[in-house]
């Protein structure tokens, strides 16, 4: 069941990605309803599989969960912001993450697991959702900068035609940050709770770097909300903070490999 639903989701996400990318090759855009339908079908199949992956032991189930949230955010961007171009990033990313999860192996551990209380599962779910939202903020910022460059350079090609308006991308970036950051914060707080109440051992470097990253993300949100940055500056801030999170994650992963972290 887990494997089948993931394979179905993989196929549908790949199809959705093709539908999003096809107009960039000069083909006529597919009807919006078709893209939305394929995404909904993929998400439904994927959600069935992910539900059976709790308590998210190992990297593969978490990658699958991240892919699910990315697909959900792509759907939300399409429906609420008419921003199909978000799929240029989220489509291949979600498809690749599912593919990677399938390659690593998705079978959940059969036995009881230490530290995988319902709170722990909630911590993982909320953290991954926050991460996906920050990824969406990053994607919106990247799309903004691309469209900005095309408009300034007076190039009226596929990016000009197929990307959403600048202001809409800015709004998407803003919304993703202001919702994503509290979500990540909640994930961090739940993590602390799990750590101290559940007595789960967490590496000190992970805690320190995690807090630093939380501050970096907080800065990116702060300059938007408090200092009212918008447009290009806000997009750069968003990209810089997300890049910092990714770099620190990779550094931690390489220097202190462990099995307790969900990613």
């Amino acid at each position, binding site marked *: 069941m887990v494997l089948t639903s993931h394979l179905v989701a993989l196929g549908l996400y790949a199809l959705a990605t093709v539908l999003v990318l096809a107009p960039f090759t000069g083909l*006529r855009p597919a009807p919006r309803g078709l893209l939305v339908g394929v995404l909904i079908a993929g998400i439904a199949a994927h959600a069935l599989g992910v539900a059976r992956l709790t308590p998210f032991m190992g990297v593969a189930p978490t990658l699958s969960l991240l892919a699910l949230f990315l697909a959900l955010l792509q759907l939300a961007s399409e429906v609420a912001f008419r921003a199909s171009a978000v799929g240029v990033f989220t489509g291949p990313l979600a498809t690749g993450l599912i593919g990677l999860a399938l390659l690593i192996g998705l079978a959940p551990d059969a036995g009881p697991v230490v530290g995988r209380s319902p709170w722990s599962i909630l911590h993982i779910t909320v953290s991954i959702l926050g991460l996906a939202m920050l990824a969406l903020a990053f994607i919106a910022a990247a799309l903004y900068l691309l*469209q900005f460059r095309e*408009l*300034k350079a*007076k190039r*009226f*090609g596929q990016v*000009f*035609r197929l*990307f959403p*308006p*600048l*202001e*809409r991308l*800015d*709004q998407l970036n803003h919304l993703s940050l202001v919702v994503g950051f509290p979500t990540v914060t909640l994930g961090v707080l739940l993590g602390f709770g799990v750590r101290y109440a559940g007595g789960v051992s967490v590496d000190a470097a992970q805690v320190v770097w995690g807090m630093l990253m939380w501050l970096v993300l907080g800065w990116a949100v702060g300059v938007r909300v408090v200092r*009212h*940055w*918008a*447009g*290009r*500056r*806000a997009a750069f801030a968003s990209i810089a903070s997300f890049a910092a999170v990714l770099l620190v994650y990779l550094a931690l992963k390489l220097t202190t490999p462990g099995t307790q972290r969900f990613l």
Partner: protein
Amino acid sequence: MSITVLGVNHRTAPLEVRERFAHTAGEVPQSLERVLAAGARGGVLLSTCNRTEFYLAEPDDAVPEAVWALLSERLGVGPSASQYGYIQRDRDAVRHLYRVSAGLDSMILGEPQIQGQVREAWDVSKAVAGPVLHRLFQSALLVGARVRSETGLATGTASAPSAAVAVAAKIFTQLAGRSALILGAGDIAELAATCLVSEGVRVTLVANRTYERAKAIAEELGARALTLDEAWDHFGDCDIVLCSTAAPHAVVTWDRVAATVRRRGGRPLCILDLAVPRDVEPAVAQLENVFLYDLDDLQAVAAHAAAERRNDIPAAERIVTEEVERFWGWYGGLAVVPVLREFRDRMEAVRAAELERTLRRLPHLSPEDRGQIEYFSQALLNKFLHQPTVALKEAARAGRGYGLLDALKRLFGLERRDGT
């Protein structure tokens, strides 16, 4: 029966000639009345800035001359209107209107305004259009809608004013509610302003070198009038600036607007410079969040869209051909019914006359025998008429009834009686 179109368009006549032929809605009935008086059973006059065309149902031979005479009067002394004109008949006339309605015959390929103009022409001429043209124009509007929905012929923006809207729409989430400042009083800026207003943009300020001219335009648009010197401070408030002054040099300079624009923060400002020579110093585009486009840029957007639209021409032409055949099938059927009735009546009259003459020569026959002979003549006539009737109806259904109808009329002398 026939359908004919006579007229001129942007391919056959220069602008100064087309301008003279253009009819206002109020002039249409009078011109149509004159043309119909020359001998036609229905007419519609389609008159836009790019074409003036008379669509006529069953016109007599004198009608083309009447049309050219009417148009020539508008030219005054000089060449006849016929030298700019064209005539298309029957299927070609139907195809022509369908192509016009679909935007295939427009100066800007696929432009959407033509469909409204076709509808308006039909509305204005409805009283004298007659059933055939009524059906023709109704179907032409459907063909236009079909081409637009099934092909990409209407996608993108193919004129500079509509390109201005498209560019602004790529900067702002929605144009409705945005404020615009108009600098100058050029025609193209007014046209672009109309396009923006139709998208919900509010023209709040109009500035011009002469205050009185600014005031006149501002009153039309419900805006406030300013002098040019008062306008620079407002670059901080508005979202879109439309420039079209007649100044011989740039009036919007870095020195005049940089400080004001910087106060905008992250809010984008779209400047559309439609003046020739340009009104805006190119350096202004270097300001953060300022997006400056001149007429060349907008024409590049339009050309890009037009190039993409050309790919959809074959699909649009296929739809037109399909619909022409459908209309022609209906029209052919319409023509067959009265001719067949006339044909049968004529044959029946011949049969009755011959029967009467024969029976007069055979007075000795009993009533039963006379009945048998009458029955025989009726059966013989039905047998003779059956195959031609079936063949004509089938040909009409397939849109090929005209050749047969014509032959029938000539062979049996029907044209003399129905007057066609």
